[in-house]
């Protein structure tokens, strides 16, 4: 049984224009073994939520009537978490997080929840959940444990250049479509800020291809209105050391295939 509850502490976003991002409560809070109304500890995705919030704040600074904002939904994906619903809502209020809605679902119906809530990006620390969502046509990204130390002042989104340039392998037209429309929204948000001091940074990494691949990806993204801030072309050099320096909050891939690698 899914229940969707609005967070009355937070102003609701314009459904037509906002970018709806759902994050699993398990990633945001570490609810441990406490009970009752105890406030949960922070989870790895806490700085991520702060970063999303920061983008919204800065967007509204530029234009108080801005409707292109992040609409953050906290979603539970297991009955166990579902039972923690009151702790999740009270923790959200306690930390003053800008979460518009809670979706209290279980492992059987969280996909349905994502779909009925018009979620455009689903973020989770659980690989299976991400795969399931992706297979159902919801753009998903896997959150890494490392993001706990990512900066809360700037949202850093990483794109993989190899996938952009060779889209025929793997992703279905539908999943490519959702990825592209979300990235276009991101691109639009990015345009609201100048080159310097932006609360949102778009990072492109080309791991296999060389300069031509990276250049192609830069141009393709540009044609979709996404202006890349940082570009790293590896051409086979080891990814690990570079990516650990980049500190992205998540990787936006063009489809299902990239999640598998």
């Amino acid at each position: 049984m899914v229940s969707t509850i609005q967070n009355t502490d937070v102003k609701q976003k314009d459904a037509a224009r906002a970018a709806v991002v759902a994050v699993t409560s398990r990633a945001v809070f570490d609810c441990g073994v406490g009970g009752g109304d105890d406030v949960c500890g922070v989870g790895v995705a806490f700085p991520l939520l702060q970063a999303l919030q920061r983008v919204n704040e800065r967007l509204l600074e530029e234009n108080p009537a801005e409707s292109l904002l992040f609409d953050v939904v906290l979603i539970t994906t297991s009955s166990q978490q579902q039972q923690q619903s009151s702790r999740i809502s009270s923790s959200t209020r306690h930390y003053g997080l800008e979460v518009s809605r809670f979706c209290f679902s279980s492992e059987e119906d969280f996909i349905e929840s994502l779909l009925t809530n018009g979620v455009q990006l689903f973020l989770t620390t659980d690989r299976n959940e991400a795969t399931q969502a992706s297979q159902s046509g919801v753009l998903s990204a896997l959150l890494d444990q490392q993001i706990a130390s990512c900066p809360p002042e700037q949202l850093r989104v990483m794109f993989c250049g190899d996938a952009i340039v060779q889209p025929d392998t793997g992703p279905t037209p539908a999943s490519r479509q959702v990825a592209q429309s979300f990235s276009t929204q991101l691109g639009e948000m990015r345009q609201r800020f100048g080159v310097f001091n932006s609360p949102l940074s778009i990072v492109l990494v080309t791991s296999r291809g060389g300069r031509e691949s990276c250049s192609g990806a830069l141009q393709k993204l540009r044609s979709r209105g996404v202006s890349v801030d940082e570009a790293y072309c590896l051409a086979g050099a080891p990814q690990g050391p570079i990516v650990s320096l980049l500190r992205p909050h998540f990787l936006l891939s063009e489809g299902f295939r990239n999640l598998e690698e």
Partner: protein
Amino acid sequence: MSEINPNNSAPAEDNGEEKDWAAAKAFFDNLKTNKPRPPKPRYAVTIAVSSRTLFNMVAERKIYEEEGLEKYVAHQVEHENEPLKPGPAFPFVKALMNVNSRLRELYPDSEELFDIVLMTNNHAQVGVRLINSINYYDLTIERFCMTGGKSPTGYLKAYMTNLYLSKDSEKVTEAIEEGIAAATMFMQETDKENQLSDTQLRVAFDGDAVLFSDESEIIVKKHGLDTFFEHEKEFENKPLAQGPLKCFLESLGKLQRKFYAKNERMNCPIRTFLVTARSAASSGARVLKTLRSWGLEIDEALFLAGAPKGPLLQKIKPHIFFDDQMFHIDGAKELGTISAHVPYGIGQKYHKGKLIEQPAKKE
């Protein structure tokens, strides 16, 4: 793209590295063009160049300084289909590419090659013009970092950089402090451009505080030349400690030996020079013995006994000349030599023999 997980234990990391490498290899092998595949970083001699050393961006830099970052980026984007003119590191890069072609002819399967990486803190939108310019000159640069404002030092290590060239002395100093060979490049005065070889990479090094530590230079500055001569004679057989560019000379030597192994010594496309103010008669022996103790060869050792380096360098015509003292850099530049300053050692505190008054360090 694999999951972000830099804290893998060593064996898993190597596996990840191998996978990255295999995928790239397959990618390049499948390309229809004859583009040479970039070498495996672990085996390559990686040279990282900044955008302002590779290309002449003096006019653009002026826009950045006078009108700010936003105008600068807009200008670059507006002109992105106009290739930039070559910068001070351009001839050096072309010479490296030539060595690579020769190496590929002799050793088609080897990964021991030069790998040229563009390391810039420019914004990726400016990067489009940089890539277009690289395409225009058909340079073999397949790896790059456009950090959008962040310091490149961490990335230098991640790309296993053997030598970093930049116009920004702060970045260069940071790199040297992290143990990476680095130098600040200067354009030669344009009306005195030397005709450089296009078949042989020629690299000239100063000795003290470049190949060797500044231990002897400290003696000169603090106790004068006479003490210096006595000291060097006494310690003739004690090798000097190594300087920031010793490892780079070593990697050049390794590549040279690959040519010697194929009987190409007479026709070797790499030639190294030592250009030192030391004198052959007195203080020179220690230098040669030190190089020998390190198992390093230098093709020509030129002892100037204090004479100016400019005229000699004009004859040598190196693609790059490394020195720790701005006095020598200026002299070289004036006579058309492309020079690179190594901000290391006691020489930084002196100008023409006089101690520079250091402003109080900013906290």
